[in-house]
């Protein structure tokens, strides 16, 4: 008796008791579906997060300097010189100085944050100018009271995107709008369009900071980001001689961290879903044991007709594997549909991964064979006379 015949027999006995077969499969169906749903949703979430990070700039390195006073410090000019020395790898470096201010246009009056940067910032962040120009060297050098605003600010305060030349009051000082950025995030409040850039030399006055502590560095390509990070670290170490006085983080590292975190999360969730598969497997074993008992006489008849222990065993193992792999199939179909639906509801693109499907399916077949083995072994060991006498 070969595997194909065992399979035909298995299909027959599954069909003979549909309800029982379905209930037996249920554990596997739920387990497989759970694995696929969880993996695809977590994948969807992590892709969404990584996309967000990547749009924030995968080639960026953030520098934070805590070293204070004395001779051991780094100035924006030092950083710019450093950038020029490494212009093969670095697009540019800009200080980033955040200042909490009051914005006022006519009578409209709001607390907000302005960001002080230099002329390289546009290339670093790949900003698109909608109208006017970005900050220039001369603005930074002469502390000109000029600003570049995001589309939300333009819409909110001037009700038009063409407001170059208008004045905006920052903490009581008039700043001239020299440029408006292209809309990039739907002009929502708090989005990337809700932004005001001024020369960092002005921002340090507004924030009352003496030293500049944070910089953003852009590498020429995202493959160079690790190299640039290393360069910056070496440079800062040569100045401070103590790596505790500054931190250098690459956005790419954050992506890695998210990846790692999501990997752990996936492992935990799949582990939990795996418990369901295990329970499903035990269900199969249980029903196979019942089936062996019920079919004791049949086993005896088969043995008297020349069935070898292997024939009986393969019949029951194949039956268990067929049950669980059919459960696996149904679970895959159910899991794929549900994960797409769940993804829609949660607002993430949850694509069922081929890997998850393959793994879930092979695990379900393996579970059937593993948990079918013990009952099958029991069946194959039955003594033909006892089995024939059994009622």
């Amino acid at each position: 008796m070969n595997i194909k015949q065992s399979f035909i027999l298995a299909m027959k006995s599954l069909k003979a008791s549909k309800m029982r077969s379905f209930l037996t499969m249920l554990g596997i169906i739920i387990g497989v579906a759970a694995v696929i749903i969880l993996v695809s949703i977590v994948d969807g979430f992590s892709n969404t997060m990584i996309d967000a990070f990547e749009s924030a700039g995968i080639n960026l390195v953030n520098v934070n300097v805590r070293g204070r006073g004395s001779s051991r410090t780094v100035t924006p000019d030092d950083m710019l010189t450093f950038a020029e020395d490494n212009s093969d790898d670095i697009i540019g470096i800009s200080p980033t100085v955040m200042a909490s201010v009051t914005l006022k246009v006519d009578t409209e009056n709001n607390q907000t944050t302005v960001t002080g940067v230099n002329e390289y910032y546009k290339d670093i962040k790949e900003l698109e100018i909608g109208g006017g120009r970005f900050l220039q060297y001369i603005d930074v050098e002469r502390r000109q009271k000029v600003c570049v605003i995001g589309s939300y600010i333009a819409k909110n305060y001037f009700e038009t995107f063409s407001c170059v030349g208008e004045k905006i009051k920052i903490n009581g000082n008039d700043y001239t709008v020299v440029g408006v950025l292209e809309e990039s995030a739907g002009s929502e409040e708090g989005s990337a369009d809700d932004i005001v850039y001024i020369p960092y030399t002005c921002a340090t006055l507004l924030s009352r900071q003496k030293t500049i502590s944070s910089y953003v560095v852009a590498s020429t390509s995202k493959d160079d980001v690790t190299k640039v990070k290393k360069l910056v670290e070496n440079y800062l170490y040569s100045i401070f001689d103590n790596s505790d006085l500054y931190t250098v983080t690459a956005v790419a590292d954050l992506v890695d961290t998210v990846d790692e975190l999501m990997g752990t999360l996936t492992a935990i969730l799949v582990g939990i879903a795996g418990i369901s598969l295990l329970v499903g497997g035990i269900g199969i074993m249980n029903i196979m044991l019942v089936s062996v008992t019920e079919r004791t006489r049949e086993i005896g008849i088969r043995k008297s007709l020349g069935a070898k222990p292997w024939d009986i065993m393969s019949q029951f193992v194949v039956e268990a594997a067929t049950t669980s792999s059919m459960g696996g199939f149904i679970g895959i179909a159910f899991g794929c549909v549900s994960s797409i639906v769940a993804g829609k509801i949660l607002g993430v693109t949850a694509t069922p991964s081929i890997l998850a499907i393959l793994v879930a399916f092979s695990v379900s077949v393996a579970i059937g064979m593993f948990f079918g083995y013990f009952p099958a072994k029991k069946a194959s060991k039955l003594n033909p006379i006892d089995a024939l006498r059994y009622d």
Partner: protein
Amino acid sequence: MIELKDIYKIYGDGDSEIRALDGINLSVADGEFVAIVGQSGSGKSTAMNIIGCLDVPTYGQYFLDGEDVSCMNEIQLADVRGRRLGFIFQQYNLIPKLSVLENVELPLVYKAMKPEERRLKAMSALEKVGLPDRADKYPSQLSGGQQQRVSIARALAGDPQLILADEPTGALDSKTGKDVLDFISSLNDEGKTVVLITHDMSVAQKAKRIVRIQDGKIVSDEVIREG
């Protein structure tokens, strides 16, 4: 064909041991029709199990076609059952969820015969017992006599030399029982060796030789009719 030498089958041990077979010596030649007769508990079923390679003796040797079967392992015994023996049981022992044809095919399946060849042989066996039109029916749709004929067809399908019939008429009324017995003796006429186990002397009278078993021993062995 069959050569039993000092066969003992002992259950339990020490004081509580039961000697189901207590030194049986029996030889059956090719083409014989032997009835083994005895009361229930006489050891005739144990003898049938051993002759049918369903069980092995505690002591003694059993040669089937000159081959020592008593020292074979489970797999070899299964092979002997499948290739050389055909069983006819009192309870027919058909598998209810398989069709008549599939039941008859079963011993051929375990001989790894090809499906088409299997089908052909099974059909010719069914024709022999006169039930070719019932091939697609299920055992529960047939009468007792028909079911017993299906089980005979199954025993014949593999074309074994030895047919073992264990109370083949036990579950049938006397009329159908007689038909079945006539059919079995016609098989013997065609040259098959038949061993018939029964407690019923009138059934045993169909055979050509009667062996009586009592308390695990052969008490008489007589040829009642020459082949």
